[in-house]
């Protein structure tokens, strides 16, 4: 019987034949296949920017708010186990690892495999850009991370942390390659989500500005070199203004999801794209930033009142892009929500019931405000998908960067002021709120103003925390933020006639201003627990001495 069995079945049946996926043996055998591998590098972006990067870069700074959230309170222990920190780590490393495969495999493929407009250069350019993008963000979020560029690494390897300098060297090289290989634009909107030459220059500028900012704070003489490199790259981008890019007539035009033309507006240099009609191409970004009662949003991330109170009410970035009062979508005639107009009015809102000529039975004071940058269009429908773009790099950011670089290199100049005023002119739709050079006597003063302007312009666009660190204003702005929160509750106690200290619990969760420092661990996120459990050395990632 054993003979019978052996004769019918030979042992080679035990070799696995794979039918429905590719293995190293048969992947990367066509140009189309290589292009598919490039396409997947972008796949993690949606989840990465659905919540995690907002938490890390806005909620953990002074431009985002979520009551009771560990990021909001900068509770370092909470971040260590928070699934958003973990998701950010996983997805950013995933982008880098997917790029590594393309960078290793594509050069080995013979040129004859690439047809139909697919080129090796284009594929490699995208992969180099995305690897740089991943490491730029990883170091922005976690400071030090392991640097892995080999796709054939043992999956179970425990790689050491690399120095920020080494990682930046790699980012710079990758972006140089990307700059060489990437086109200035794409003919088809189908490729709108891919990086371009302009995006590569923009990210190089961001890299150099970060290096320059760090060098300035450390008193290094080479800071000026970095600012000059940055200037060159920003100029490369701005050289395309009028050709490739233009500042939109109003801020709403940058974000308006209702028209196809606005969705593809040319202020965007690099953005995550979403479809309003194809389910697998759309996302629920629009639901993250508003409350259920406003438009059936999920209320995961808001704006702090402290930021809203800083806006001039004539600024469209306030009047158009912020929700400071609304009717309950379920009870439009009954319930009204309203934010206090200034800090000293906090706690007074429910005392009046008539607004806009209408009397409500219930008036509730908002403890936060909403952004309309990612406006949700499907209220009353359980359709979560909406064609909201998420700008990762846009022209107004670059213009403000140039102002910042010029200020760092030469102190306040009319050229820098003019750049800022371009942005302000658009925001106010007139020149009446322009800055005057005479108001700024030194670089520090203008840096402060640029910092504020970037907050008005780029809040909830995932740039705030790196901005504060680069400008050396993290401690300053976070102290002001937490001080203002305490003051807000003091006003609430007064306005509601409660005993002093009644709301202590609401603000004492925040760090005390004096506990913040210029080398605060909380400037960066800890590498998540899941990784530290596998590699204990990752606990030391925020060792700032590394770059001194």
């Amino acid at each position: 019987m054993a003979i019978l069995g052996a004769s019918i079945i030979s042992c080679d049946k035990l070799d696995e034949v794979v039918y429905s996926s590719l293995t190293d043996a048969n992947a990367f055998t066509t140009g189309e296949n290589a292009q598919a591998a490039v396409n997947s590098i972008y796949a993690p972006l949606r989840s990465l920017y659905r919540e995690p990067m907002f938490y890390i870069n806005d909620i953990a700074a002074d431009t985002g708010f979520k009551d009771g959230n560990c990021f909001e309170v900068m509770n370092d222990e909470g971040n260590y186990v928070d699934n958003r920190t973990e998701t950010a780590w996983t997805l950013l490393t995933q982008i880098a690892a997917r790029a590594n495969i393309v960078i290793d495999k594509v050069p080995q493929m013979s040129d004859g495999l690439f047809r139909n407009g697919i080129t090796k250069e284009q594929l490699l350019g995208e992969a180099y850009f995305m690897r740089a993008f991943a490491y730029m963000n990883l170091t922005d979020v976690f400071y030090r991370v392991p640097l892995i560029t080999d796709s054939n690494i043992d999956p179970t390897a425990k790689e050491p942390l690399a120095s920020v300098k080494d990682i930046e060297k790699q980012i710079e090289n990758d972006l140089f390659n990307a700059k060489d290989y990437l086109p200035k634009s794409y003919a088809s909107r189908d490729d709108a989500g891919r990086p371009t030459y302009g995006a590569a220059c923009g990210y190089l500028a961001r890299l150099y500005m970060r290096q320059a900012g760090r060098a300035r704070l450390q008193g290094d003489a080479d800071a000026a070199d970095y600012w000059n490199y940055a200037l060159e790259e920003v100029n490369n981008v701005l050289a395309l203004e009028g050709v490739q890019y233009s500042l939109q007539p109003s801020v709403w035009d940058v974000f308006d999801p209702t028209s196809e033309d606005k969705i593809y507006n040319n202020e965007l240099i690099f953005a995550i794209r979403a479809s309003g009609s194809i389910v697998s191409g759309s996302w629920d970004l629009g639901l993250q930033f508003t409350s259920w009662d406003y438009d059936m949003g999920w209320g995961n991330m808001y704006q702090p009142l402290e930021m809203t109170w800083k806006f001039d009410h004539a600024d469209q970035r306030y009047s158009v892009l912020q929700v400071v009062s609304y009717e309950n979508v379920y009870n439009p005639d009954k319930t009204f929500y309203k934010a206090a107009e200034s800090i000293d009015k906090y706690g007074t809102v429910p005392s009046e019931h008539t607004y806009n000529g209408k009397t409500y039975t219930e008036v509730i004071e908002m403890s936060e405000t909403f952004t309309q940058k990612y406006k949700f269009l499907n209220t009353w429908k359980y359709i979560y998908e909406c064609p909201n773009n998420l700008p990762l790099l846009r022209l107004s950011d670059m213009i403000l960067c140039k102002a910042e670089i010029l200020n760092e290199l030469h102190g306040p100049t009319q050229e820098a002021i003019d750049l800022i005023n371009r942005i302000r002119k658009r925001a106010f739709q007139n020149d009446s709120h322009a800055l005057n050079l005479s108001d700024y006597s030194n670089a520090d003063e203008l840096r402060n103003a640029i910092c504020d302007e970037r907050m008005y312009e780029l809040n909830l666009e995932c740039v705030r925390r790196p901005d504060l660190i680069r400008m050396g204003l993290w401690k300053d702005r976070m102290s002001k933020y937490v001080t203002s929160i305490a003051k807000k509750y003091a006003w609430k106690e007064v306005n509601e006639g409660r005993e002093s200290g009644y709301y202590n619990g609401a603000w004492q969760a925040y760090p005390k201003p004096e506990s913040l420092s210029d080398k605060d661990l909380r400037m960066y996120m800890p590498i998540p627990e899941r990784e530290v459990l596998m590699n204990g050395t990752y606990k030391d990632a925020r060792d700032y001495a590394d770059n001194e």
Partner: protein
Amino acid sequence: MKRLCTFILALLFTISLSAQQMAKGIVYDDSGIPVGGVLVSVDGDNSTYTLTDSNGFFEISANKGTVLNFSCLGLLPKQIKIDGFGSSLSIIMDTDTQMLEETVVVGYGVTKKRDLAGSVSQIKAEDVKAGVITSTADLLRGRAAGVSVRQESFEPGSGITVRVRGASTISADNTPLYVIDGIQSTAGNQVSPEDIESIEILKDAAATAIYGSRGANGVIIITTKHGSAGKIAIDYSYNTSIKSLRNPWDLMNASDVIRYEMLNWKNNGAAGDPPYTEAEQAYTGAGTDWIKEMTRNSTTRTHALNLQGGSDKIQAAASIVNTKDEGLVLNSDFGRTSARINVDFKPSDWLRAGINAYAAKTDRTYISMGTKSSTDNAMYWMFLASPLNTIEGKNVFGEETRMENVYYELMYKDLNVRVNNSYITAYAQADFLKYFSLRAQYSYNFEMDKYSTYYDCNTNHGAANKGIATMEIENSDFQQMEGVLTFHRDTGKHNVKVIAGTSFLGNNYYYTGMGAHEFTTDAFRVWNMGAAAKIDWYSTARSDKYNLSFFARAEYVLNDKYIFNASIRADGASNFGANNKWGYFPAASVAYQIGDEPFMEFTKPAFDNIKLRLSYGQTGNDGIGSYKSLRSYAFQDIYLGGNSIIKGMYPANAGNAFLHWETTTQGDFGIDFSMFNHKLEVNFDLYSKVTTDLLNDINISSSTTGITTTKGNNGVISNKGVELYLNYHIFDTKDFSWTSTFNISHNKNNVESISSPTYYSLRPHGSYADTQYAVVQEGSPLSTIYGYEWIGIIQEGETYAAQPKSQPGDPKFKDIDGDGIITNADRKAIGKGDPDVVFGWGNNFRWKDFDLTVFIDASIGNNLLNVSKVLLEDNNRLNSCFDRWTRNNPSQDVIRGTWKRDGGLQYGSFVNSHFVEDASYIRLSNIELGYTVPVEKLNMSQYVKGIRVFIGGNRLLTLTKYSGFDPEVSVNGSSAVTQGLDYNAYPAYKQFNAGIKVTF
């Protein structure tokens, strides 16, 4: 059914008549059935004897004081002294269990129970009264020591988790191997309970190692009913039951809600308008009980028709069974129709051959619940539905209002699973050269699983998509080919049996699926997906898996006393790394009938036999699917702009060329004995199982490949335990008998080593943070519930140093690591999902024509994390919320705020010991009263041979401290690592049964 003592029929007989008086009577066996052909003789008088007739009746001449001998093969001899001649004698002859040579089915053969050296539990279907059940696994519940059977949900047709001696693996499959009439099958649960003759559960390595790579989780051998020569019978049975809701939740009704919200409004300073007008506040009705409204008293029924019979040359059994099981919750149902035919031919003395064929169709309509997202969770909406709203779409004050979600979520979804399963097996067995036999067997099994969903426009999910449909079809072609050569020679002193064989398994799996949305009508459901405006996805896949094995076993019994067994199996499996495809699984065992030794003679008055067993061996587990050793790329949809979806290719599996077998090494020590003339039978086992090279998802840094886990061999799990089984014929007389069966087992599971802990998270709803609640870590058992230790609520004026930001009314947690602050490190094991002890206690009583079965089972020492309670408490649905903390009500039970993400909670989470409950229970699992109609007395025997009717109930009484629907639920199905979670589980019920069985 009358019994005939055939052995005696061969004798010639005469009846001696003399001047003495006539003694007369009826001989019964121990189950009360008259026995024909029993030799009745006068002690000391070789010439006076008679045989009982077919009704067990005898008449013999005797003197007063004469002793009569009764003898019959298979029954223990009996002597009766004649004291008088007035009345008819009633003689009960006990079954000679030793003579009957009870046999047990083991892997690739049958062994005398007496000669068994391994640990095997045997269940005869006819001995088990389990009430009205639809699943084979339900037959096992509580019946065999060391076998835990847990209902995953009370939904009809839902899974049942069967574990033999604890969970021994993390991510590979923990389900025991089912072998149905010699065929390895995944469909053990699809066999209709009515078709089953017996079930053997192989527990220790000595018994399971012959199944090598697939034996590590124990082996359940199911033998279906076969025909026998000379006996032709047709049975028809009909069982039915009614299930009625058992709801222990103390939910607020409408007037409670009004009262609560008014109280809340006042406590908050009575600002603004009160939530209810004075007229509304006067409402005192209960409003709508949505759990009641959305459930029903549902029925279950089974028709079963069995035919069996045969001659010397051909025997056959056939059955057809139809089951319909309505769920307690609306729109959940299960149905199965199965047909089976087993035919055995015996053309000559040396040749046997046969064919088994089986076909079954099951249909299941289910609801979505458990940890599903709240958009698509019927139980979530049922729990949260307001009692103030009525089923007519109004509120209790008569105003039109939005209909409660639960109604749409239950009534407007079609969620279906259909399984078609059929197999055919052919075998031939030839005996040759006196001691040899050769058996060859081939079987082909086809299974099609069809999963379809349709959410129509009334549901949340359907409205968002204008109707959304999916259809997925899985086809499996499974082939098994086996050849076994057996040598068996019994000289009386030496009893030797050797088997050797080979086995080939091939499994080809095919998948087709698609999804579409945006229909212009709900009329098509899933049946016209081409009518959808948007095709979302379509997918096809194929995978193959092959196993090739060689095995051998030797059994040797010396002097009917010393028993030695050894076996080895070599298994090759396609799904392991290139150089690790083969595994070798040896086992050895010895048993010793020590009770038969002369030096143990002193035990004889009480003990009939005493056997010691010792076994040791290894088994494997390959249940990880295919292709895990290879780095592989999968495809996905990508959108980068415009109007087109493009394809992306990404590394989906990191690959591991070293992937190899998981090995379980098990030692077992057992004692079996029987006492009081076989009235009491006892089996006792001690075992220790260690699983090494654990197959699981090893955590890897995503920085290397972008993937967070890879399948690998890592870690060690141990299971140690004790099992005791008792079977006691307490009373046994003609009119009354009582048999009691009791089994109890204790298993201790522990993760001995693992490279890094793995946590499992839960997000009960979008408003809660994603929170870890279970862990696999060194030193804890699998399914450890992991969280904070609740120590109460911070009261007014109290400061709790470890939680400086907390306010009065916030929960207070223990500073476990003593660092003065509550952090993530202050979590510990706060419960475990698997029980310490399970027992089952069955009692069968018979009084005249009545029989009564009482079956009690229990599970002790396991916990449930009651997340349903978190949700109900946070949403003020429980009456206990009246105790919510306020400045005026210093509650120690309900916190001031909520456990939701924006609830302001600064420390800890809802995963804490306050919501971990003791889920131990003792349950009256089944009670059944039957009546066997005395067809002969009623002169009906020419029409029917037997009629039995019964009434009874399942789960009529449950003693538990658990506050949720039922302590038995497992919302994570059969997962080995996350048992112990109750969240949006299906409601529990009591079941009232009735049935009839007629034998023609």
